[in-house]
C-alpha cells in the first residue's frame, strides 16, 4: 500500500475568529516544509458574536499554545478576567446561581463534598447550597479578583479563571499575530470551488488567483462558497437571534458575566475594560410562537439555526467554526468547543493525501464533544424531573437525551456524578449546575456518615469563613486591572 503524497500545502479560508485561531495554532506547530496559506475574505464574519463573550479557564493554556500571552490579551483587547457566569431569574423557578471555574472541592475520606452537604440538608430538612463553599463563586459575586497563587494552601489557590472578551477585538489582535507570522497571507473572495468527488481540487479567487492545496480548512461560516455542491448531513436545532449593544464605562465591572432569563431567551451583561457588552438572545420561534426582536432599535447581531454537521471533515476539507457547528452561547461552550476543534485538528493533522483515518477520528471526537456539551446546555432547559416523569417533561419539547437523563437521575437519586468519555464540561461544572438548577440528591453516600456531626459542621463553617475572609482581602476587579495594566506598562517601558 503506498503511503500517498505527503501534505505540503495547507490552505485556510476564513473571515473571522475560527480561521484566525486555527491559523495561529498551525503556525506554531507546522514543520517548515509545509506551506500555510491564509485566504481572508474581504467581508468579516457576521456570526462571530455567536462565540459569545466568555471563555472557560482552558483558554489560558490554549493561548500559550498559540504563543499568545495574557499581557497581550489584557493590554490589546479590553478583555477582563472572568470567574464564570451568574445566572439570574432562570427557568420556571426563577433560579439564581453562579457557575464558576475552580480546581476542586474537598473529598473527606474519599467521599465527594456534595454528599456532606446533602447529609447536612437531610438532617436540617434544608436546601443549603454549595455556592458558599466555592471560592471563585464568592469572588465572582463580590466582583473581586487576584491571580491564584501556585502551591499555596489558601482558598484563592482554588480559583481558576477565563476571560470576558469581545470577538471583534480578539479578531483584530489575532489577525495581527497571524499576519506577522510566516503564513502566506491573501486577501480576496472565493468565487468557486472545484471538487472532484470527495476531493477539493482548487479554489478560484476574485483576484484571479487559483488556490491549490493538499488540505483545506473552510472557516467561512454557514454560507461558505467552498461547501457549494457538497452535501453533508446535519443535525439542526432551534433558530436563535440576538442583538448586541455596548455600554461604555470608565470603570470595569465585576468578575463574572451576568445572564438573566427572559420569557423567550436571555440577556447577558459582560464587563470589559471599557464598558459592558449586552447580548440579548431570543428564540425566534418560542413555544411555537413567533418572537419579534425585543430591542427593535438595534440590528441583529446574529440570526442562525443552531445545529452542526455530522461529518465536518470530509475528504481533504475540514469545516471549522460556524459552518461546522452553531451552538447557543449560554455557557462558555462555543469557545471551549472551538478550542477543542483546533486542538483536535493539531493532533490529527494529515500527513499524506490519504486522510480517511484522520477525518473519521476527528469526526468521532467532534460529535462526542458537541453531544456532551449539548447535554450540559440542555440541562439548563430541563425542569426538575422525577424518575416517573423522566422521559416526558422537558421544556424544550424534544425528548431528553438518555445520557442526560441518566446523569440527572444518578445525581438526583443519590449524588452520583456520571461522566462519559470526551466531556467538555467537568464533574465540577456539573456539580454546580445540578445545585444551581435545584437538582438536590435524595440521599447521600452512606460513607459520609463517618464524620461526626459536630466535626462536619465545624469543617463546613471553617470553609465558609476562610472564603469570606479571603474575599474581603481581594481587590475589586477594576482596581486589580488598573494595577496590572500600570505594572505591565512600566515593565515594558
Amino acid at each position, binding site marked *: 500500500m503506498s*503511503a500517498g503524497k505527503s*501534505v505540503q500545502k495547507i490552505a485556510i479560508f476564513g473571515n473571522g475568529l475560527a480561521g484566525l485561531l486555527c491559523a495561529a495554532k498551525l503556525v506554531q*506547530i*507546522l*514543520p517548515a*516544509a*509545509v506551506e500555510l496559506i491564509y485566504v481572508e475574505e474581504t467581508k468579516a464574519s457576521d456570526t462571530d458574536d455567536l462565540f459569545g463573550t466568555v471563555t472557560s479557564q482552558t483558554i489560558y493554556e490554549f493561548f500559550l*499554545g498559540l504563543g499568545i500571552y495574557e499581557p497581550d490579551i489584557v493590554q490589546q483587547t479590553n478583555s477582563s478576567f472572568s470567574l464564570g457566569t451568574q445566572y439570574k431569574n432562570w427557568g420556571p423557578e426563577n433560579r439564581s446561581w453562579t457557575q464558576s471555574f475552580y480546581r476542586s472541592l474537598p473529598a473527606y475520606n*474519599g467521599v465527594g463534598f456534595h454528599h456532606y452537604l446533602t447529609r447536612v440538608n437531610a438532617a436540617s430538612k434544608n436546601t443549603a447550597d454549595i455556592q458558599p463553599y466555592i471560592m471563585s463563586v464568592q469572588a465572582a459575586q463580590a466582583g473581586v479578583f487576584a491571580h491564584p497563587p501556585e502551591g499555596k494552601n489558601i482558598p484563592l489557590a482554588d480559583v481558576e479563571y477565563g476571560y470576558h472578551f469581545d470577538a471583534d477585538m480578539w479578531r483584530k489582535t489575532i489577525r495581527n499575530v497571524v499576519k506577522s507570522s510566516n503564513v502566506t497571507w491573501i486577501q480576496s473572495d472565493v468565487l468557486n470551488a472545484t471538487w472532484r468527488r470527495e476531493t477539493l481540487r482548487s479554489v478560484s479567487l476574485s483576484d484571479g488567483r487559483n488556490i491549490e492545496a493538499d488540505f483545506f480548512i473552510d472557516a467561512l461560516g454557514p454560507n461558505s462558497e467552498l461547501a457549494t455542491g457538497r452535501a453533508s448531513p446535519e443535525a439542526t436545532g432551534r433558530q436563535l437571534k440576538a442583538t448586541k449593544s455596548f455600554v461604555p464605562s470608565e470603570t470595569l465591572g465585576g468578575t463574572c458575566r451576568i445572564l438573566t432569563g427572559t420569557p423567550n431567551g436571555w440577556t447577558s451583561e459582560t464587563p470589559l475594560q471599557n464598558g459592558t457588552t449586552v447580548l440579548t438572545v431570543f428564540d425566534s420561534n418560542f413555544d411555537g410562537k413567533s418572537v419579534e426582536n425585543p430591542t427593535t432599535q438595534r440590528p441583529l447581531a446574529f440570526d442562525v439555526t443552531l445545529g452542526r454537521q455530522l461529518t465536518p471533515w470530509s475528504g481533504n476539507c475540514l469545516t471549522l467554526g460556524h459552518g461546522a457547528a452553531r451552538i447557543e452561547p449560554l455557557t462558555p461552550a462555543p469557545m471551549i468547543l472551538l478550542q477543542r476543534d483546533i486542538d483536535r485538528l*493539531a*493532533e*490529527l*493533522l494529515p*500527513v*499524506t493525501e*490519504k486522510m480517511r*483515518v*484522520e477525518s*473519521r*477520528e476527528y469526526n468521532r471526537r467532534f460529535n462526542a464533544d458537541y453531544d456532551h456539551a449539548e447535554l450540559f446546555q440542555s440541562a439548563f432547559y430541563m425542569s426538575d424531573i422525577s*424518575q416517573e416523569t423522566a422521559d416526558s417533561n422537558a421544556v424544550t419539547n424534544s425528548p431528553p437525551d438518555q445520557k442526560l437523563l*441518566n446523569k440527572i*437521575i*444518578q445525581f438526583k*437519586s*443519590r449524588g*452520583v456524578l*456520571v*461522566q462519559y*468519555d*470526551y466531556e467538555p464540561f467537568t464533574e465540577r461544572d456539573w456539580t454546580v449546575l445540578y445545585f444551581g438548577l435545584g437538582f438536590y440528591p435524595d*440521599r447521600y*453516600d*452512606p*460513607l459520609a*456518615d*463517618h464524620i461526626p456531626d459536630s466535626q462536619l459542621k465545624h469543617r463546613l463553617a471553617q470553609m465558609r469563613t476562610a472564603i469570606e475572609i479571603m474575599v474581603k482581602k481581594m481587590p475589586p476587579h477594576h482596581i486589580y486591572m488598573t494595577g496590572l495594566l500600570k505594572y505591565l506598562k512600566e515593565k515594558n517601558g
Partner: protein
Amino acid sequence: MTIKRICILGGGTGGWMTAAGLSNKFNDLGVSIDLIESDAIGTVGVGEATLPHIRFFNKTLGIDEREFMRATRATFKLGIEFCDWGQVGDSYIHPFGDYGEPINGVDFHHFWLRLLQNGHKSRLDDYSYPVLAAESGKFQLPGPDCLKIGSNFGYAYQFDSGLYAELLRRYSENRGVKRTEGKAIGATQNTETGLVDSIQLENGSQINADLFIDCSGFRGVLIEQLLQTGYEDWSEWLPCNRAVAVQCESAGPSLPYTRATARDAGWQWRIPLQHRTGNGYVYWNKYISDDEATHQLMSTLEGSALTEPKQLYFKTGKRRKLWNKNVVAIGLAGGFLEPLESTSIHLIQEGITALIELFPNASFQASDANEYNRRMDLNFDRVRDFLLLHYVATQRDDTDMWRYFRNMTLPESLQEKLEAWNTRGYLLRYEQGVFLPPSWVAVMAGQNLLPSSYDMRANQMSDADLLGMTTAIRRDSQAAVNETPDHGAFLADYMGATS
C-alpha cells in the same frame, strides 16, 4: 432505608477482597457482613499477578506493604514479558510506565518513530526505566520525585492469592465479618420484588440479608443459577477455553516480572513468587488436547513440580448484568477474561470500588444497578479489546489457532484503534478503562506493528536536538538502572526490615 445486612457467597480471592473492602468502609456504620464459604469447594485462585492498582486497594485497607508481602510470599512486578507473540523468537516487556516523556504535548513515541523512519534505529524499550530494570532483574521502589527517571513508574506484585485470601480473611474477621462454614443449597426470593431474601445452607440454617454478593465462582450460584441473568459469550474473540496450572520450584534469580509465552494453541504463564513459581497453559481445546497441553506445560517447567497439574474450564465473557436485583456478581461469578494481562484481580477490585461508590439502599432502584453495570461493562469491553490485540497484532500464522486470528473480523472498536496506530501512531483515547495509551504502544510496537507515519508536530525539533535529547534519555535511564539493586537482594532486604 439503608442496607443493614450484606451476605457474600463464596470465599476465595474475590470473596475475601470484597469482605475486606466492604468491612473497611461499613464496619462502624451498623452494617453486618456474613461470608459463606465451604472448605469442601476449592477456589480457583485467579491470577497471581496483579496490576499497580492493587497497591491502592491495600493502602485503602491500611495494610502495610511489608506485612502483605511477607504474608503472601510476594515479589515485585515491573511488567509482563511477552515471548513469541509478534513472531517466534521475539520478546518485549509491557511495563507499568511511559516511554520517554511528552515533548510540547506530543507523545514521545512519535519522536521515536520519526528517528526510526529516518534511519536512526533504537529500541523503544531503551526509553523505559522499568523495562531496562526488569531486563536486568533489578528493582527498587520509586522515589518521591515522580518526574525523575527511576521514580516515574508503577509497580505491582506477584503473590500467592490463596495466602492473600487468608490475610484478608483475618483482616475482615477483625472488622466484624462473620464467616459461616457451609454449602449453599438454595435461596428464597421475595415473591413480589424478586429480591433475594436468604440463602439456605446444607446444615439447615439460613442467612438473611439485604444485599448479596455472588463470589461463588464460575457457577454463579445466585446471579445465574437463581436469577438466570444470562452470559455474554466472547469465545468468538477470545476462544481459549481451558487452562492447566501447576506450581514448581524456582530456578535462577528472582525476576521482577511475569512472563507470557505464546504457544501453538494458546499461551503459557510464568509467575515467580518468593517460594515457588506459578505456571499455566491457557489453550483452545479445539487445537490441542488436555493431555498434550499438560504434557507441554510439564515439560517446560524450570524446576520440579510441587503440585499435581490442575485443570480449569471456562468460557470467556461476562454476565449480561453484573448487578441484577439485589445480587452483585464479583470475580468469576461475574465474568472471565484470560489472565494474559493480569486483569482478574483488577476486575474484582473495580467491582468492589464501583459497588462502594454506588452503594444502594434497601429500595434497590433500577438506576443503582444501571450505572454499576454501565461502568463494569466498559471495564470488561476495554480489557477484552486489549487482550485480543495481543492475538491479532502479530505476524504469526504458523498454526491453526494463529490462522484463526488472522482471518477474524475484529470488533469495530479495536479495528479503528489498529488503523489509527498503523497510519500515524495515533492512539484512540478514552477516560475510563484500565489500559492507558502507553500500554497500547508497548504491545503494538512490541509485536512489530510499526506505523507508516507519525504526528506532524514531532517534526518541529531539529534532528541534532532530537538526537541529543533521545541519547540523553537512554543514557539517564540506563544510569538509573545501574544504580538499582537486584530484585532478589532488594526483596530480601525489604522483607527483613521492620516497617
